[in-house]
């Protein structure tokens, strides 16, 4: 009986990962793609996306949920890249230049986002999502109207023919894959962008180290219970703002790494779905609104992107249309976010119900487990 219960609990807690794994494994054979191809794609996509997804970790530690406001950081990185292309700065130096230009902008954006989220405690995710739409409007205004008119743009190749505003698509030829190609190794027939992975590794080390610092501990305390943290002397609002600032700056760097790998930039919508895909990836990896770790990021990026690679081909082979696979990708992305949020809310309710049951005279173990689950859920909702 207890074995059945623990198995059931395991399935409940890992429902998203298990469903995703099953879907992925089921989609591989009909896709007809070789393992060699899928593994190479995974290596490329891990390098391209992992940094962006890692940017989500700190706000989760601070109990602010999934930072949909990371789009603000992505926009800052894009402004850095536009300026690098404008001044014709190429190679790794061009990427570093873009990162340096993007840093103060993303710090400012992160501060604004953090301050707004502090006014909307308990509704951080939806507030971040809507804030991203608002700042997107500001970004469009700056890039479409102010660049070339107020901010001088000297490269005619990136300016709209009317004389101001940046073109829809920018060719990032000067910085294309410059980080990936910096140290490309061929191991067993697979090309591995070592420099990109080193940077991702450094960020992982930073995250592990940061959790052990005073600020990191403060963030975890705030994430666990804001009231207790405040009473213990932790500056809650300031800590939350710092978490969002670091996340936004990391998102800015992540977007630059992402775009250098892609080689071109859709000026007005490259950032649109950045947060959406990053959030989907971390949730697929088994993270929740309250809890996330580096393995969740790695597993999530791999699982989500294996599915992204195989579904169009599987759709083509099974139904005669690759578009089915494309729709399926979209459906999976949104579906996984919805499923995780629903499961999270359901678990919170179950925990609260168990706690109530315990207080009414059920056994103390049930009550303790229920209280713990309810506490976890409450903390996440804060």
């Amino acid at each position, binding site marked *: 009986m207890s074995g059945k219960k623990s198995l059931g609990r395991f399935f409940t807690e890992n429902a998203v990962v298990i469903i995703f794994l099953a879907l992925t494994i089921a989609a591989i054979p009909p896709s007809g793609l070789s393992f060699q191809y899928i593994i190479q794609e995974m290596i490329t996509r891990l390098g391209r996306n992992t940094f962006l997804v890692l940017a989500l970790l700190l706000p989760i530690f601070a109990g602010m949920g999934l930072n949909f406001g990371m789009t603000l950081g992505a926009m800052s990185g894009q402004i850095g890249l536009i300026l690098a292309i404008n001044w014709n700065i*190429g190679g790794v130096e061009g990427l*570093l*230049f873009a990162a340096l230009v993007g840093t103060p902008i993303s710090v400012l954006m992160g501060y604004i986002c953090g301050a707004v989220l502090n006014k909307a405690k308990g509704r951080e995710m939806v507030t971040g999502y809507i804030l991203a739409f608002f700042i997107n409007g500001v970004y469009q205004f700056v890039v479409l109207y102010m660049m070339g008119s107020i901010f001088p743009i000297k490269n*005619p190749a990136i300016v709209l*023919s*009317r004389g101001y505003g940046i*073109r829809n698509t920018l060719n990032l030829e000067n910085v294309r894959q410059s980080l990936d190609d910096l140290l490309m190794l061929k191991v067993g027939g697979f090309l591995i962008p070592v420099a990109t992975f080193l940077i991702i590794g450094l960020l992982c080390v930073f995250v592990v180290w940061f959790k052990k610092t005073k600020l990191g501990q403060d963030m975890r305390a705030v994430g666990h219970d804001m009231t207790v943290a405040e009473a213990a002397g932790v500056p809650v609002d300031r800590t939350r703002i710092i978490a969002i600032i670091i996340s936004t700056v990391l998102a800015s760097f992540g977007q630059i790494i992402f775009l250098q790998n892609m080689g071109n930039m859709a000026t007005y919508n490259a950032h649109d779905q950045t947060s959406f895909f990053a959030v989907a990836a971390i949730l697929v990896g088994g993270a929740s609104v309250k809890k996330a770790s580096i393995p969740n990021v790695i597993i999530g990026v791999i699982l989500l992107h294996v599915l992204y690679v195989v579904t169009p081909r599987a759709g083509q082979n099974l139904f005669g249309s690759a578009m089915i696979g494309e729709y399926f990708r979209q459906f999976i992305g949104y579906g996984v976010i919805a499923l995780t949020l629903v499961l999270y809310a359901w678990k919170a309710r179950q925990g609260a119900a168990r706690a109530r049951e315990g207080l009414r005279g059920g056994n103390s173990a049930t009550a303790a487990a229920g209280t713990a689950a309810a506490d976890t859920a409450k903390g996440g909702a804060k």
Partner: protein
Amino acid sequence: MKQVIDPKVRTRRLLVRAALIVVFAGLVVLMFNLGKLHTFILDNKNLADGSLTAARGGNLVSIDGREASEIYPGERSMEKVKGQRHTITVTSLSGTDKVVRRISLDLDSEMMLVSLPRLIAGKEPYMEVFVPLNVVTTAEERAGTDNSFTSPEAGGTDPVVIPTP
């Protein structure tokens, strides 16, 4: 209650912050200088006044020790370089003559036309600023030419030629 900060600490804090800003600005300038791209158009044509002609057999031109490209009389070749100091090595295809020139560029010189006959003969100026006549853009950008509230995607399909200043 407002926290009182020791003036010494405040000064030290200010100094550290100022130093960080200087380092940040220095890094931006450094990246700008190191990563600035320039384009060389290597021109192996006879001079218009007929005073110098391109080497008959053609030349091998290498910039900064990179793989050399073959440029025959009447041809042009384009090379992108990073940074402001470069070495151009021109070797005749027969292998008899070799000329090495070290050049430094201004930060704002985007595209430079290098005349190989002049460079080989050591006749100044062998390098001049090259300004492209026009830039061809696709009409997808055209919707923005008026001030109406339309998306830049809403353009036609034919190319538009705009003059550059």
